[in-house]
């Protein structure tokens, strides 16, 4: 055996063995760890300052989860888009558009249909309308090679304008008991919107981690060339990603209209940045190639806990922006550090 042969017969270790595995594990769990630390912090503060509990109050837990629902729905779609190396800035106003359209659709359908089918018509209309801007986004980005940031920024403006035009510059009230029950009712003590969101996030987790669609999303984020050469239809895949992202925003919009029994064009305006922050805090890289649904869920909960917790301990609300901003920056720094220690993944 030549020396070259014998060196080959050695077991192959990754070039950076050891700490890497742990770093990757910690990266996956870091948002959950951070969430635990936050909960411990608020619990301790509440006990010492007010002699009350933060964590063991059903009311608080419900408020936090209901608060987390809307940015989480946007963030679920964004997780896919960001893993593929793109970004979708239009989801906030697509959510508003869907909220307005579903409210109008229910009001119109109520003239011809009993309340329950009228509600269904509204839900379908709200989600279906989201497909149009999502499809156009995908077309711009995959076929016409417009950078995602610019393409979806344009759609941000278009969706915003159309949503306000359809709403006539105001909010559109809905009178439908079924719809109100969807947004505000409970099922075995759990808010309906939370149940719907949990079912949807399980579906998204399955899609990302267990299907070819998810696997190809990761591959495209790592290297579009590699995906192309492996025979993946990259442009059609991108098209689907942006439709998925818009549909998530559409569901968010419908649930918003159900919760407030009104459609508002500005429904998603403050949620865009929160949802991207949730994805990033959850361990996704804006360079693409990494991220997970579990991380995004933790990221959305981190933001909700900070926002609700600060109100709970009586801190001025403006500190919410400061603390969420600081958390985003820390997450990105941790991500950079892991990248340079972990090597390989660029």
């Amino acid at each position, binding site marked *: 055996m030549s020396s070259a042969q014998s060196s*080959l017969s050695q077991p192959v270790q*990754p*070039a950076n063995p050891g700490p890497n*595995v742990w770093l990757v594990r910690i990266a996956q769990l870091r948002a959950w760890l951070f969430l635990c630390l936050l909960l411990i912090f608020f619990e301790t503060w509440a006990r010492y300052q007010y002699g009350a509990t933060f964590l063991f109050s059903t009311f608080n837990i419900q408020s936090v989860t209901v608060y987390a629902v809307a940015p989480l729905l946007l963030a679920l779609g964004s997780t896919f888009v960001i893993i593929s190396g793109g970004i979708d800035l239009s989801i906030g106003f697509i959510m508003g558009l869907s909220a307005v359209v579903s409210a109008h659709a229910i009001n119109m359908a109520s003239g011809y249909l009993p309340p329950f089918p009228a509600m269904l018509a509204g839900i379908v209309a709200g989600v279906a309308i989201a497909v149009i801007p999502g499809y156009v986004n995908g077309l711009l980005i995959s076929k016409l090679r417009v950078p995602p940031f610019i393409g979806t920024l344009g759609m941000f403006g278009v969706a915003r304008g159309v949503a306000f035009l359809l709403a006539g510059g105001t909010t559109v009230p809905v009178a439908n008991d079924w719809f109100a029950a969807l947004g505000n009712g409970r099922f075995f003590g759990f808010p309906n919107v939370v149940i719907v969101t949990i079912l949807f996030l399980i579906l998204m987790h399955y899609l990302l981690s267990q299907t*070819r669609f998810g*696997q190809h999303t990761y591959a495209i984020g790592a290297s579009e060339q590699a995906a192309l050469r492996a025979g993946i239809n990259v442009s059609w895949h991108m098209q689907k990603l942006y439709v998925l992202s818009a549909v998530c925003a559409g569901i968010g919009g419908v649930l918003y209209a159900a919760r407030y029994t009104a459609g508002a064009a500005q429904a998603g305006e403050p949620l865009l940045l929160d949802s991207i922050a949730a994805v990033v805090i959850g361990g996704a890289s804006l360079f693409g190639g990494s991220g997970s649904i579990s991380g995004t869920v933790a990221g959305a909960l981190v933001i909700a806990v900070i926002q609700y917790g600060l109100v709970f301990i009586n801190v001025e609300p403006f500190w919410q922006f400061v603390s969420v901003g600081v958390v985003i920056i820390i997450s990105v720094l941790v991500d950079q550090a892991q990248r340079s220690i972990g090597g390989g*993944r660029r």
Partner: protein
Amino acid sequence: MAATQPLLEVREVSKRFGGVSALNGVSLTLDPGEVVALAGDNGAGKSTLIKTISGVYQADAGEIRLNGEPVHFATPEAARGHGIETIYQDLSLADNLSIGANIFLGREPKRKAFGFLPVLDRAAMAKAAQETMARLDFHVTRLEAPVGNFSGGQRQAVAIGRAVYWNAQVLIMDEPTAALGVPEQRKVVSLIHTLKAQGRGIIFISHNLQDIFAVSDRIVVLRRGSLAGERRIAHTNHDEIVKLMVGG
């Protein structure tokens, strides 16, 4: 020699891009278990030739025969379907995925979870990865690690492993040793010996005459889109090859 049918036969292939003639009636044969090195200066037509063989370009004239049958590949996928696999310099791997996921990228196997839910069969991918890499004399211990964590030579082996798993009969390797350190280059050279012993045909493009002489059986030299000469390794030396390349 005449008794065995060549694996791949390129006959008088020409390719033009507008007014530029990139290939001028170039012929090349490749036998099973043979390594043919493609040498030539920049712009000699090496890449055009391999891209014509692998279906990226279509020849304007001439024909390509695989196992004696004339073939026309409209796309690289079609060539791959016939067992012609190209391993590019930048490797075409997804760094964030495991070896198994890279081997199966675009054709992932599935299984049914709980008897009805289709999910990716990661266990099957890991097992195939281990077996395939073992066939290349690479014994992988950490199958779940993303390939970005492996060294250049190891990644080259993964790219070759993917081709081997899908049963490539003709492997076209574009500068497989260019981006590697010396010990890693030696690994790739011995990988090529392993592939050769398995009866696959290899077309090997390199600027490094040392590597060419270490692994190939024959050298085909191109110059300005034409065949400048063809030599058996046993009957030539560095000087002669360099002269053919520069046209001295």
